[in-house]
């Protein structure tokens, strides 16, 4: 996975997907405009499976889940940040999308480095140097949500158990 590094703090959901595109909600439509107001070349740079590395409070601002969908649609598989804003983090978990909190990471990794995420050992691995950066493992609850494929699948199961859906 190639890392696209945006070391700035407070990258907000307005920048990740500007409001002028909120009259759309399909991942493939939103993808074309991901990160447009931060880096107009972003979509061209990203290949399927890449990740974003960013500073503190990533995803602050509006609750628009469109931000998660735009990134995922553009091919991003995970965001690793020094810290996350609350609603964005929740939206990631609920979508089964990897949001990994790793304080200090934005200053450790160079743009375009090749990276691997080891979920078992909870480490980010920089392939060229072999350096490993530990992150706080996901709580069991979050792991279950991610492996179930997101919150809605869980809800569906729950309702089915109660005979409601």
């Amino acid at each position, binding site marked *: 996975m190639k890392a696209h590094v945006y070391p700035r*703090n*407070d990258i*907000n959901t*307005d*920048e990740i997907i*500007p*409001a*002028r595109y*909120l*009259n*759309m*909600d399909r991942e493939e439509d939103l993808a074309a405009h991901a990160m447009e*107001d*931060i880096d107009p070349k972003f979509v061209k740079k990203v290949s399927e499976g890449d990740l974003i590395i960013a500073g*503190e*409070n990533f995803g*602050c*601002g*509006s*609750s*628009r*889940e*469109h931000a*998660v*969908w735009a990134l995922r649609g553009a091919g991003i598989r995970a965001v690793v940040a020094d*810290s996350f*804003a*609350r*609603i964005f983090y*929740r*939206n990631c978990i*609920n*979508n089964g999308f990897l949001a990994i909190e790793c304080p200090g990471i934005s200053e450790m990794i160079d743009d375009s480095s090749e990276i691997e995420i080891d979920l078992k050992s909870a480490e980010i691995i920089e392939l060229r140097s072999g350096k490993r950066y530990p992150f706080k493992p996901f*709580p069991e*609850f979050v792991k279950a949500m991610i492996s179930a494929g*997101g*919150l*809605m*699948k869980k*809800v*569906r199961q*729950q*309702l089915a158990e109660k005979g409601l*859906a």
Partner: protein
Amino acid sequence: MGMTITEKILARHSAHEKVSPGMLINAGLDLIMCHDVTTTPAIDMLKKQGIQKVFDPRKIVIMPDHFVPNKDIKSAEMIRKIRLWARENGIDAFYELGRHGVCHALLPEQGYVLPGMTIVGADSHTCTHGAFAAFSTGIGSTDLAAALATGELWFKVPSSLLFRIRGKLPKGVYAKDLILEIIRRIGVDGALYRAMEFRGDTVENMGMEERMTLCNMAIEAGAKSGIIAADQVTAKYLQERGIENYSQVESDPDAVYEKTYEIDTGSLEPLLAFPHLPSNVRPVSEIKEKIPVDQAYIGSCTNGHISDLRIAAQILKGKKVASGTRCIVVPASTEIWKQANREGLLDIFTEAGAAVSTPTCGACLGGHMGILAAGERCVSTTNRNFVGRMGSPDSEVYLASPATAAASAICGYICDPRTCLEEKS
């Protein structure tokens, strides 16, 4: 060890006798608020999972506001889809154009918000309703879909920060300046994942609208929620809407706060958040250069209340908006619009050369009805000044109180509202 209001509400709704910060709980929801942008994806998710019915149509309120009146064909289709879905599901509380308003102004105004409730809304500023001693927080579309289907959601119990605010607000200083000061002090992530509880005589002396302004911007410090204990002012607001019965909830005297901030309002001045962060705050009086203003925007869920319009009208009365500057006034709800009309405020605005719009989120989020061109600058009573928030990524937004925005509209550059207020008194 006691509990904070927030902890008590979450405990009651999750069948725990006691909850403490960090606990993961499932909490039952009393009220779910939906608007146009975030609800269509939730409807699609419900359909995709084959979920035909919402858990309880009486606990769901739908308030299209972002792109109303319909901005374009796509948004017209979105709102139509929600309207039809609401009908299918027997959700009567759908606020159609003409009864509409910005969701966070409309929800309390229509008497939905009561102390002790758990409220979620698919909008980040849902923290506004904490002004009524409710636990109220913003969520995304997947959470919304889950909430609509089950009537409950998972939460991590937040720790609480206490803001003890004392003193009278000096002339020309308003709730908006106070919350900007708080965000200046603690930063845009200073309350990340936490509940901000506001207390003290300054808060007690505020009306409900000012308290809403305070809680509205809790999210700009990263908070999960803002909250203020209910009192006589709350009771009166609810009484006016025919509401007498609701649960009393207060923080215990020995409740535990992660941190307490003491704030004395005596030395506060009119403030301004410079681009591009709400924490980038400076006193207006310190600005020595003349910063020309292309647009002054008075409205939004933060400052589009009737009390805000009265303040703006007080300054704009008998004056003219500077040539080269546009001024847009957007009452936050239909009732506020009507009240402003009855009080003659709309005449004052239009005589001054301001344009008055029907309620909408509109330009606040760079949607429509007042978008900024590259290189343009707006003084705005809204809550966010991120890059491109109100239009071009090369435009600038300065956040301020309605008084500062109105004064700047007259001057044509950013100016201290106290000069205008003195002239009048």
